[in-house]
């Protein structure tokens, strides 16, 4: 589904990603953990080319997204993304946020787009907020609306960039519950997160990154209960 080969990314002199090789299978849920500054967000943002990789290739369903010949806008439609800061469009209602892209990019009729948006809002528990502007939502509601917006394009892969890090603690559970449901439905997901409990419960595979490398990867049991590398052990002893 996703195949990343020799991915490198530098910001000027600073080498943030050093030769990353990752493969994500269909319906797999991969959680990326690691200390801040380890490059995990940059790694995620390279997958849909929000950051331009310095080297390497990233194949999404067999097509290299780093190849300029491939239409980046078309390819991004397959990759839903959820941001730490939500990034909802404040000048549109929740419903408009969700329907804007399917109507304009997929040529859906307004009616179909609205129907589907309402189904998604039901899924994330926000049917009563369809006509509301994002400024009037709580953080957790914003993030769930943002997830619905990403799902409206019917992506085959969802990328989550620390989706609960900007939330008050009591809001985190609702967002994680929505993500859990998605995982159960078989969505392919790559999640950068600090929620270790969530990673342990939902992930099929956990990747521990530090210093721009994958230090260790494996099943949640391997990583959390029996970490091999001392950097993984040091990190987990601080966060668990």
């Amino acid at each position, binding site marked *: 589904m996703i195949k990343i080969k020799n991915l490198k990314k530098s910001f000027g002199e600073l080498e943030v990603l050093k030769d990353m090789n990752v493969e994500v299978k269909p319906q797999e849920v991969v959680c990326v953990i690691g200390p801040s500054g380890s490059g995990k967000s940059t790694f995620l943002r390279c997958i*849909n080319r*929000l950051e331009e990789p310095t080297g390497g290739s990233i194949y999404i369903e067999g097509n290299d997204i780093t190849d300029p010949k491939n239409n980046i*806008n*078309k390819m*991004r*439609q397959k*990759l*839903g*993304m959820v*941001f730490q*800061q939500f*990034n*909802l*469009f*404040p*000048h549109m209602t929740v419903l408009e946020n969700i329907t*804007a*892209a399917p109507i*304009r*990019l997929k040529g859906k009729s307004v009616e179909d787009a609205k129907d589907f948006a309402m189904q998604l809002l039901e899924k994330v528990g926000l049917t009563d907020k369809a006509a509301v*502007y*994002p*400024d*009037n939502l709580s953080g957790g509601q914003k993030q769930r609306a943002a997830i619905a*917006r*990403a799902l409206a*394009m019917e992506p085959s892969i969802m990328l989550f960039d620390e989706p609960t890090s900007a939330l008050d603690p009591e809001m985190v559970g609702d967002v994680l519950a929505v993500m859990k449901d998605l995982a159960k439905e078989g969505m392919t997901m790559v999640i950068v997160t600090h929620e270790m409990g969530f990673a342990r419960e939902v992930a099929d595979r956990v990747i521990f990154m530090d210093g721009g490398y994958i230090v260790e990867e494996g099943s949640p049991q391997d990583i959390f209960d029996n970490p091999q590398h001392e950097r993984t052990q040091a990190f987990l002893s601080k966060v668990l």
Partner: protein
Amino acid sequence: MYWTVVITVISLIIALIIGLVLGICSITRNKLLRAIATIYVDIIRGTPILVQILFIYFGLPSVTGITMSALTAGIIAISINAGAYLVEIFRAGINSIDKGQMEAGRTLGFSYAETMRIIILPQAVRRMIPAFVNQFIVSIKDTSLLSVIGIAELTFAGQSIYAMNFRAFQILFAVGVLYFIIIYILTMFSRWLERRLDVS
């Protein structure tokens, strides 16, 4: 008064187009486009509008041989002058929008241009309204300078009248009142617009 309004309206429409196009140029990664925008803004902001008016009406034809009516020259002068300030207003307005908005738009699959049009500009323009209105008011008043090239706008008309009847106080007072009325109407309209666009 008629010409003052006509010149202002036409000039501001042209200036808005200049401001939008070069404003976007000034934030692109393309160095050439950025340089064009910067040089244009620097030249226009660095010279007095009266010199620009005289230069376009008297200076350019003397070199290029292309003559134009005072009205055309006046509209060009006001347009390129206001345009330069609007470039800066657009640039600042667009830059004031969180870059997460562009990222969210691009991630959904919108192109740069679509994201600009559907997501960034609608938000940016709302924030720019007070600055727009400010520039519009300055431009309305700048049209009074077009009297130097003989355009029959409000100030010129006033001058012609008191040149005949010598009632400079009354006539100039009336001219001032007319400018005030035009600008006051614009100010009211902008306040109404700001309230209306302040949704949510």
